[in-house]
């Protein structure tokens, strides 16, 4: 009998069950794909390090040092690999015969004789060797230039020309491939040897990089400590290379999270709704003596069957979706891809959740009595007053009144719908805000340059000889910045745009507090006081023995404001007092700021950010744009950016985020349409008798469809207003959270496109809602006036 009731139910409520099944498929698909992405992204760098066989310590050093031989003799060292490289500047390269004008930094050409760790191509396949006459490069070498497989790179060294065929980009865990960093090219060892033989004075630097696998990092660092001119990077510093990729990945995760939340709220609503509308069956079953547990098991079994079938289909559908989502963020990282167990876990979680939902919803069955069967589910005892508005006192037309009254009479139902719609709008608007913010000047303070900067010159290749010479000498002594700043300000003056020039450099020092030891990047901005930066707590460092640290660095050091830390600046040890905290992306948040005239050991230099300009007359955005163009003409430099362009160029995220935003908009449209169809179909099913009655008393199809469409539209409009109110604080909180995952960030400003978030996105939601409801409500045409008497 139990199975017969169940079979009959599945057959009789075929449409609703199919819609429910479709929704379970959607939930399962999203949950499996999102969970897979969460695991892939959060464990992404760890996974990448594992499969890359990443070194525990990477040491860059001059070629004539033999530290590698010293290290291999250490008992703590398991393995040492050595890569040899030399650096060439942009003028040595031509892409398909054209000058590579977008390249800023010197490029390291590495011999493929021995790989320091595993490298992967764009399709995540391991590169085991480089064919003769070919080359792989990191993505920042191309700088967005159109370059296809087998295109030709011409390298000119001392009037000798080498032609190399492009094999593709490569992904590496141990090299920083962000746009602001030096690119890398791997060559076949024979080709590299030939080029190296032609070098003479053409290369501005030759280098040896040692990749060390060890069980005692400190022992290796100690052993390397007194070698001249080396830079040491530990494994945990590699993660900072991928901060922008992780930023995109986390934003995608947030969007997926909203999508899954919307889908589950809807599913919970639909299950509760379908059970509550079966008051008659439940009442009859109670009347004939079936126990609560028996009745509940019918529904639980039904939803178990639907969730099982839906989850299996959803899991299968999640595989391509998950790959597609990950593909959009795997420019530099090899994510773990599709993890079968994770996907299955996601789908299984959907089954468990649906069973919990149906168990929770069926608790209401205990409260129902046989009388519900004959009193339309209403005993008159436990129902609150439903009619909120008064038709006689309202000026609304009948259809509008009915729609509004329905919404106000069932506030809980429509509140849930509104919440779901709000999540849908937020999914689009938050993505928009992320995309706009990351191509605006709002996060510029996180890049370690003064917030009052108007433009940044990142090119070394400048036609002004005095500035070019100053750039060349800039890193030779602690005073050399003065001539660079002086020459730059002179050039600005001469061209009628007086302003202040600043330069920011950083060195990597080992820092100790108590028994804690951390590698921290110390930033100094010359020609502007340190209090021109934003501090979260405390004050700016004003004396050479003062320092501001990020919250993340303080936590690692277990230090507080007022504590003293010991800094090994390369041989010497200095004691600094912590004056405050600040936020930054630099070095994954392991950063410190010193006062403007603090001395640095330039041998430990790990970054510089070009020249920053602050115009004296605070020009507007358009004027800054004009001046940047003029500066490009005057200096011959290509890489002169406004703050927004700088953020966009450094993060390289605007294109990816724009693509993700569009993808999320499309998914929102699909999800919203499915939500609307499911809910409206549920409403029609529940209100069949009322629809028939309305038709019997003379309401036309159009009025009924209008009423149904209008009430969903009302919910969509309220959701749009609600989403508009919370989108900015929500985006700010979300972006701060996401930024905090990749740097040390306690707060950030956000930028937004008002038209997009307050007009376009709400219009999409309202449009989809209106069309979806209207089309679904057409089903009410099949309900006839004469059905009034035959409806259960």
């Amino acid at each position: 009998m139990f199975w017969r009731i169940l079979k009959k139910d599945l057959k009789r409520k075929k449409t609703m069950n199919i819609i429910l099944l479709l929704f379970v498929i959607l939930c399962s698909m999203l949950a499996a794909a999102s969970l897979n992405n969460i695991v892939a992204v959060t464990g992404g760098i760890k996974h990448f390090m594992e499969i890359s066989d990443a070194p525990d310590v990477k040491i860059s050093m001059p070629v004539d040092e033999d530290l590698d031989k010293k290290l291999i003799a250490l008992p703590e060292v398991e393995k040492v690999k050595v890569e040899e490289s030399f650096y060439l500047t942009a003028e040595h390269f031509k892409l398909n015969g054209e000058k590579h004008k977008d390249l800023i930094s010197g490029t390291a050409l590495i011999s493929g004789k021995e790989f320091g760790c595993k490298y992967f191509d764009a399709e995540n396949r391991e590169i085991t060797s480089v064919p003769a006459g070919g080359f792989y490069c990191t993505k920042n070498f191309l700088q967005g230039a159109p370059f296809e497989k087998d295109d030709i790179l011409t390298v000119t060294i001392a009037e000798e020309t080498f032609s190399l065929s492009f094999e593709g980009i490569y992904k590496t865990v141990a090299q920083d491939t962000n746009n602001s960093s030096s690119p890398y090219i791997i060559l076949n060892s024979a080709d590299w040897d030939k080029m190296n033989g032609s070098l003479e004075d053409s290369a501005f630097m030759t280098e040896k990089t040692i990749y060390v696998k060890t069980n005692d990092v400190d022992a290796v660092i100690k052993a390397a400590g007194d070698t001249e001119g080396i830079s040491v990077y530990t494994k945990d510093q590699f993660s900072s290379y991928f901060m922008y990729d992780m930023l995109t990945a986390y934003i995608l995760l947030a969007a997926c999270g909203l999508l899954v939340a919307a889908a589950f709220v809807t599913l919970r609503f639909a299950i509760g709704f379908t059970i509550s509308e079966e008051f008659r069956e439940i009442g009859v079953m109670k009347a004939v003596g079936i126990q609560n547990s028996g009745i509940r098991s019918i529904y639980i079994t039904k939803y178990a069957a639907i969730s099982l079938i839906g989850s299996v289909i959803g899991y299968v559908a999640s595989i391509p979706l998950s790959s597609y989502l990950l593909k959009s963020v795997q420019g530099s990282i090899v994510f773990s891809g599709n993890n079968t167990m994770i996907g299955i876990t996601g789908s299984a979680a959907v089954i468990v959740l649906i069973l919990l939902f149906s168990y929770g919803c069926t608790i209401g069955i205990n409260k129902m009595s046989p009388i519900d069967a004959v009193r339309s589910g209403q005993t008159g005892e436990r129902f609150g007053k439903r009619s909120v508005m008064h038709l006689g006192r309202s000026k609304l037309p009948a259809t509008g009144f009915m729609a509004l009254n329905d919404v106000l009479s069932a506030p809980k139902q429509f509140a849930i719908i509104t919440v779901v719609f709000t999540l849908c709008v937020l999914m689009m608007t938050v993505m928009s805000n992320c995309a706009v913010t990351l191509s605006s000047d709002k996060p510029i303070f996180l890049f370690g340059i003064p917030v009052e900067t108007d433009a940044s010159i990142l090119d070394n290749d400048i036609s002004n000889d005095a500035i070019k010479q100053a750039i060349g000498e800039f890193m030779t002594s602690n005073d050399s910045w003065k001539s660079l700043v002086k020459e730059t300000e002179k050039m600005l003056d001469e061209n009628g745009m007086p302003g202040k020039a600043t330069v920011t450099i950083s060195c990597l020092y080992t820092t100790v507090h108590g028994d804690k030891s951390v590698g921290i990047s110390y930033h100094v901005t010359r020609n502007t006081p340190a209090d021109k930066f934003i501090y979260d707590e405390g004050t700016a460092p004003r004396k050479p023995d003062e320092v501001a640290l990020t919250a993340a660095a303080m936590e690692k050091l277990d230090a507080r404001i007022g504590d003293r830390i010991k800094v090994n600046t390369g041989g010497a040890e200095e004691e600094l007092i912590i004056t405050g905290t600040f936020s930054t992306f630099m070095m994954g948040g392991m950063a410190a700021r010193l006062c403007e005239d603090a001395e640095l050991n330039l041998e430990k230099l790990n970054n510089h950010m070009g020249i920053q300009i602050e115009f004296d007359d605070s020009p507007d955005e358009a004027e800054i744009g004009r001046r940047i163009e003029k500066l490009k003409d005057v200096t011959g430099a290509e890489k002169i950016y406004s703050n927004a362009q700088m953020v966009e160029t450094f993060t390289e995220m605007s294109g990816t985020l724009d693509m993700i935003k569009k993808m999320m908009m499309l998914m929102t449209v699909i999800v919203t349409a499915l939500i609307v169809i499911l809910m409206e179909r549920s409403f029609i099913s529940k209100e069949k008798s009322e629809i028939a009655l309305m038709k019997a008393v003379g309401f036309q199809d159009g009025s009924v469809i209008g009423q149904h469409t209008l009430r969903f539209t009302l919910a969509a409009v309220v959701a749009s207003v609600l989403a508009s109110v919370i989108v900015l604080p929500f985006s700010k909180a979300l972006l701060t959270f996401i930024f905090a995952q990749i740097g040390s960030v306690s707060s950030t400003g956000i930028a937004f496109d008002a038209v997009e978030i307050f007009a376009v996105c709400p219009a999409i939601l309202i449009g989809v809602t209106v069309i979806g409801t209207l089309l679904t409500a057409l089903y009410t045409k099949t309900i006839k006036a004469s059905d009034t008497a035959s409806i259960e």
Partner: protein
Amino acid sequence: MNTVLQTKGLCKTYIVNKRQNNVLKNIDLTISEGEMVAIMGPSGSGKSTLLYCVSGMDRVTAGEVIFNGKETAKLSDKALSQLRLDEMGFIFQQMYMMKNLSVLDNIILPAVKSKKNTESRKQTEERGRQLMRRLGIDDVGDNDINEVSGGQLQRACICRSMINSPKMIFADEPTGALNRSSSDEVMNELLSLNRDGTTIMCVTHDPKVAAKCSRILYIVDGGIMGEKEMGHFDGGEKELRDRERELNNWLMEQGW
């Protein structure tokens, strides 16, 4: 007397599991203004189907239905809805009402919807209250529909059917879900309406209800098997008992 409703060769066929089921067969019927006609017959004989077909709630398979001079089969769905809204009233066995509206709002809803109604909302509401007063339920106007008794709800349904001053009221087992005293009250209200000039067509199983009608149509297997002219009832208990007896005898003859 003017004819309000006329059917010629009315047929209604349902196809159930590819099997043809002729529910109504060649029904010719004429109802004049001011009549109160009861449709009786065994279960499944087609009484309710006839009511739905002549009231335009359902489409006929063949034949003509002429209501107030308009052939309903030729009217569009929109025009039929308009006709039901402005010129017909409906009462059902189950007291169907909109759950989210108060009793008074349910009553005035058709008037608010009707384009024929030129009154202000306030005037319409007042007219609704007057109707409720007349039917003795004026104290439950602001109540929800689950807060009133079945008898009160059915009287509210009568108020709703009357709100647009229809030419004719169609009632499908109006007392079927009520106890005897509520049933009597509801029938008295319908009688009162009929006396005021409203034509009523009423499907019923109850001879006590039918005895108050002016004409009885007896349907068996989709065809009118008998017709009895009873004359208008405006007497007391004794006359009603006499009419009941007479009707029961006639029904026995029809095979009731």
